[in-house]
């Protein structure tokens, strides 16, 4: 079985479980909306300066909601020792981690889309001015968050305090990605046209994705077995 099929098999299994239980989506969606709602009382949604905070607000909500999703990713494999069954099978550890990342990516994108609608209503911001650029930014940044969350989810799966440890470990590493995502999303939601120099940010996101996807492929077996 080739790697892409292996990755899809793992992702499809996780998504099937999530569709049935809705344990991650419901928690992450509710959390993200709650953050946006709370911030809507902290800032004046109708002020002109709101555009300057928009990207930051969104990505804080997405990153925090993501932690709820990643914590469940590998924890799902612990009951009945399913992780042992997977690691003793021909499935490669990197396919397992990337399959988890793909499932996490789909779940987080779903949460982001729901949150964007809520954001548009609460903050009076038109977020469909640059739909393709925004979709690309969401995809690039969310993949980066998902792959990092999955790698460190694998690393912390056997820790007793994994729910606490995972965010503590991943948020500092997410800083470059979040800076890029916040900056470019703020530009996309703002009133100014996109300058050519602004495209540096999506390039940073792409570089981050490539680096951490490669790291996950190289280190998965060491992380999960050793």
């Amino acid at each position, binding site marked *: 079985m080739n790697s892409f099929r292996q990755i899809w098999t793992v992702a499809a299994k996780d998504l099937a479980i999530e569709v049935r239980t809705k344990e991650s989506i419901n928690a992450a969606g509710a959390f993200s909306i709650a953050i946006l709602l709370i911030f809507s009382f902290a800032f004046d949604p109708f002020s002109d300066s709101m555009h300057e905070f928009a990207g930051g607000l969104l990505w804080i909500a997405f990153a925090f909601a993501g932690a709820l999703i990643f914590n469940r990713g590998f924890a799902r494999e612990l009951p009945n020792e399913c992780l042992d069954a997977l690691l003793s099978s*021909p499935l490669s550890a990197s396919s397992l981690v990337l399959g988890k990342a793909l499932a996490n990516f789909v779940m987080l994108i779903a949460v982001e889309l729901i949150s964007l609608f809520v954001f548009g209503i609460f903050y009076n911001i038109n977020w469909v001015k640059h739909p393709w650029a925004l979709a690309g930014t969401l995809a690039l940044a969310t993949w980066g968050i998902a792959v990092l969350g999955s790698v460190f989810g694998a690393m912390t799966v056997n820790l007793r305090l994994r729910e606490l440890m995972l965010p503590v470990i991943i948020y500092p590493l997410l800083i470059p990605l979040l800076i890029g995502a916040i900056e470019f999303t703020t530009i996309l939601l703002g009133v100014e046209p996109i300058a050519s120099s602004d495209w540096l940010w999506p390039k940073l996101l792409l570089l981050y994705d490539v680096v951490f996807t490669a790291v996950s492929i190289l280190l998965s077996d060491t992380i999960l077995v050793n």
Partner: protein
Amino acid sequence: MGTDAIAVRQLWKYYGDYPALREITLDIAQGSCCALLGRNGAGKTTLLRILAGLSPYQQGEVNLFGQSPRGRGARRTAGFLGHGIGVYEDLTATENLAFFARVHGLSDVSATVARWLKRVGLERVAKMPVRQFSRGMRQRLALARAFQHAPQVLLLDEPFTSLDDKAIAMLSELLTEARLRGATIVLSTHQLREALAIASDVALIENGKLRYSGERTPEMLSDPALLYRLHTELGAD
């Protein structure tokens, strides 16, 4: 019997400073059934997990058909049944078996799954989530999961423990069939009589050391405690 399916050479495994396995050297011939015996904490599970590629080791060499246990070829030939049943509570029996069939790269997933569900008597509850299964049904599903890809090496950790009568009969039948098709079986157990009845070979581990390995003799079958009396420091107590 033929060439060695499993070869372990001078194996040392540490948990921190504690040596869980000490200089284990063991050959298991292809087509044989080796009962791995020993008291709690002797190192049986550790050795099985190393053979299944689930645990790293510090010194020595371990090969399954000439390959490292972490090699994909070795994992393709192996089937592992540990203490957990290794199936997902929120998936149905069909979905569980189909998932593991795909993971093992089986070609006709639907037919394989249908055949195994029938084989373990779960075809009527095929669409039911495992969470609603009784303990016996879960155990039978776990057996189907471990055997459906016809592994050439079966690594079974305490397979008889907490099985109901139906599942014990089914496991014995599956093990006999596996041996007939030439599979190599390594099973760890405390249940001496059941294990010795199906084993062709015996390996006895005490405190991480291999005390005895060799063929299972008729004397062992008639007196299961004989091995412990002859080859361990504490005797058969």
